[in-house]
């Protein structure tokens, strides 16, 4: 039996106080009952000798004292509000989903209240409460009083992050606990495939009444869900048109509403005044896809927003950072042979991402002998000066193996007929990478490959090689297509969100837990979006869509709590019977 209103110490201290107080009252109590008798002469004789002068009368009527004390103890026990502790095999874990799947604030508050009530009857030694949202933590540990839970739930709000319920369940499974009942307070359907991998001792059950209360609060009819629309995908890709300084934008919206949601795109707060292409609209299936072609990539924050007022606001907003694709200022050095210069110029002028300049260049194409220039450079070396036909020089903190992998791409080596080159050069055509602590990036290539002996400059690979090399040299910002909260790994030493603690990466990779705007330790500004179809679906899910994870054994846990004996009622009934008994005893003169 747990006392919900008093600690055990306070309870027993109160009992002692009652016993002492009643004891004093018993000694002081003088209550004469008037009785008419035919004569008092015998009584007078009887008490004459028995009467003695005492300062304090001796303790009398012990049974009356015991009865009154028992009644007082019952009242005190009722005040302590005991509740029968639910004895269940193993422990019980109440898991509260504080993610975007929890729906709006009211829905989450209802879930929190329901959880708080469900926790009360259980033995505090074997029950605990977890919350998974922005992070996963314990709200109530075994042995802690239930009153602490209410304080910790105060102010707790759902976060713009995908649900981590399955992750929490897997964590529970890894802890190797004994038989454990898990009651999950979430509105989303649990992944049956992941649940099937859980051990048998972990019995999972969703709180059944949660969806019902949500539906009742929203006024939806039975069988109907609560309407919700959410942006489940927002990404950018290289422009299909090939425009290097543009990107294509792709959007997906999922909705449970019968009407098409209103969608607005804005770039740094300014509405993008362009019509979205509606691709394969499937409103009847609740999926809408849009695209926007050739959006200029000048950096900036692209935001997509749905009209608010539906079940969840977390998925009404998504954002992504556009790359800054300004033209590369490339200078052709004076040491280049005129013919080569002309060839290079001819190719580069066709590259819209390159601007040939004579000054204030950001990149330079030079010969190996032209040293003293600190700009990243495409260097024309010779076979005698370097073993590799293509040698990439990178910053020392990077691994050469990684760079080699990148180089294979941006050097368009797959387009290069290396066999032909090798046969012509009578030497193997190799690719190399080296790190350098200081100095700019470089791509060094045999100048011999540029001669007429080889058809390198006339091949289709050459322009790709040039543009790729120049872009690598300039460390052009690659398109980061999208960043989904709690999913997309970001190569960074850490992330910082305004008003939140910095996230430090131990492995060089990290995941942003919540949707929002971050800054990496490298200075990159990153927009993180929810992009969670399961959260959007959960926010608009009806109560009929209960799937998976429910075990009959765990159902008994909830049923047992709802049918827990109300100890207070029984105590008060017993006390009432005792009072009636005392009243009768006093009336019949059997008790003073």
């Amino acid at each position, binding site marked *: 039996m747990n006392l919900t209103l008093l600690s055990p110490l306070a309870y027993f201290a109160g009992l002692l106080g009652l016993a002492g107080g009643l004891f004093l009252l018993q000694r002081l109590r*003088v*209550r*004469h*009952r*008037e*009785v*008419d*008798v*035919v*004569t*008092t*002469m*015998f*009584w*007078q*004789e*009887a*008490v*004459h*000798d*028995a009467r003695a002068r005492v300062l304090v009368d001796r303790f*009398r*009527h012990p049974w009356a004292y015991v009865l009154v004390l028992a009644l007082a103890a019952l009242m005190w026990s009722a005040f302590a509000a005991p509740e029968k502790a639910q004895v269940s095999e193993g422990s019980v874990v109440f898991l509260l989903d504080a993610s975007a799947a929890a729906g709006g604030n009211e829905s989450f508050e209802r879930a929190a209240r329901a959880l708080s009530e469900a926790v009360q009857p259980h033995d505090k030694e074997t029950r605990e409460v977890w919350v998974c949202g922005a992070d996963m933590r314990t709200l109530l540990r075994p042995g802690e009083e239930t009153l602490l839970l209410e304080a910790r739930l105060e102010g707790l709000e759902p976060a713009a992050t995908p649900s981590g319920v399955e992750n929490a369940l897997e964590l529970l499974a890894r802890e190797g606990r004994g038989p454990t009942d898990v009651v999950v307070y979430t509105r989303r359907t649990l992944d049956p495939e992941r649940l099937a991998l859980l051990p048998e001792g972990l019995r999972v059950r969703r709180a059944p009444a949660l969806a019902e209360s949500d539906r009742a609060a929203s006024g939806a009819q039975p069988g109907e869900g609560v309407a919700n629309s959410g942006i489940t995908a927002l990404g950018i890709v290289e422009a299909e048109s090939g425009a290097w300084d543009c990107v294509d934008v792709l959007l997906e919206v999922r909705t449970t509403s019968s009407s098409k949601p209103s969608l607005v795109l804005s770039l740094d707060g300014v509405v993008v005044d362009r019509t979205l292409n509606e691709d394969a609209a499937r409103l009847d299936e609740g999926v809408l896809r849009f695209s926007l072609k050739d959006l200029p990539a000048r950096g900036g924050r692209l935001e997509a927003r749905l009209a608010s007022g539906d079940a969840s606001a977390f998925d009404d907003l998504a954002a992504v950072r556009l790359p800054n694709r300004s033209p590369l200022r490339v200078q052709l050095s004076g040491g280049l042979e005129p013919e080569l210069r002309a060839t290079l110029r001819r190719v580069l002028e066709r590259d819209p991402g390159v601007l040939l300049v004579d000054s204030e260049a950001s990149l330079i194409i030079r010969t190996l002998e032209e040293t003293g220039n600190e700009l990243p450079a495409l260097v024309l070396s010779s076979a005698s000066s370097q073993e590799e036909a293509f040698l990439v020089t990178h910053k020392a903190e990077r691994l050469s193996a990684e760079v080699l992998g990148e180089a294979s791409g941006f050097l368009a080596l797959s387009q290069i007929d290396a066999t032909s080159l090798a046969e012509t050069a009578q030497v193997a055509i190799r690719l190399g990478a080296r790190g350098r602590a200081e100095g700019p990036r470089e791509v060094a290539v045999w100048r011999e490959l540029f001669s007429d002996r080889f058809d390198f400059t006339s091949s289709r690979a050459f322009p790709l090689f040039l543009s790729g090399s120049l872009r690598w040299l300039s460390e052009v910002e690659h398109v980061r297509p999208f960043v989904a909260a709690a999913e997309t790994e970001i190569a960074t030493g850490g992330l910082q969100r305004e008003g939140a603690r910095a996230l430090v990466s131990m492995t060089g990779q990290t995941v942003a837990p919540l949707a929002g705007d971050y800054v990496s330790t490298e200075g990159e500004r990153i927009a993180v979006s929810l992009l969670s179809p399961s959260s959007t679906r959960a926010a608009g899910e009806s109560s009929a869509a209960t799937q998976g994870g429910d075990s009959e054994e765990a159902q008994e846990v909830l049923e047992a709590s709802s049918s827990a004996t109300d100890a207070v009622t029984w105590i008060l009934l017993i006390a009432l019977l005792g009072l009636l008994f005392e009243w009768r005893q006093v009336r019949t*003169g*059997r*008790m*003073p």
Partner: protein
Amino acid sequence: MAFTFEDLFDADFLESLKHLRLVAKRVPAGGRFAEQRSRDLGSGLEFRDFRPYSSGDDLRSVDWNIYRRLGRVFLRLFEEMEDLPLYVLPDISRSAFLEESPRAHAGLRTTLALASIGLGQHDTVGVFPFAEELETCIRPQSGKGRQMTFARRLAELEPRGATNFEASLRRFAAMKQRAGLCVVVSDFFDPRGIDAVTTALGRLRHRLLLVQLTKSSDREPKLQGDLRLRDCETGVVEDISVTPAVIDGYRKAYDRFEEALTAFARKRNAGLLRLDTDAEVVPQLATLFENGHYAV
């Protein structure tokens, strides 16, 4: 009225009185309390003695046989066979009417029962209820048919004040009634104590029959707790806490009372009948005539 006639003397009770009279009649002549050898010497039927003739004596009483033999005139004296006046003194003090089953109910029934016996035997019966004073309810009279008159008069009695044996019996003595049998029907609870009671009774020149109206609770009170006892006659209040010691003292006090009353009856050669007022009256009165004689 404290009681209705029907409540006090119902048909069953009146019928039972007939049986009581029959029981009383079975007692031989020597034992009937209506038969009392009078100390008066008169012209009754039984010769007792001679005495010299005095001037004025009735010549019919002269024993001429003695004159013929002795030449002297003597009178023949005979015993006077007289009836025994019955005086019944029922207690009508306030205490007799207090309890749930009032003692006065049994007391008045006892009074009528004894009066019926006396009337049935042609005795003179008078009823003198008392409390703080003695009253004359029914003057001494005889007649078999007077039973209902007695019953009606008894049913009209109302409770009076406190009990005062001394004053009541003094008044009775002052009436100078013919010597007879005085039956006191009472609980004998006089605030002045049993000594005052026995002293007052001792002054009576009549033969005495004491009918003590009792209850089982007189010796075994069923009171508990802290009580404020109020004497219904005197109003005296006594605060007590009923404990085993107090109960023990109460019993001892009551036993002393009983012993004193019994000792007086023994000393005075008076009859003492302890009547349980919660039981039927007539069967208890019949015990007075057990063994074929009236034992006092």
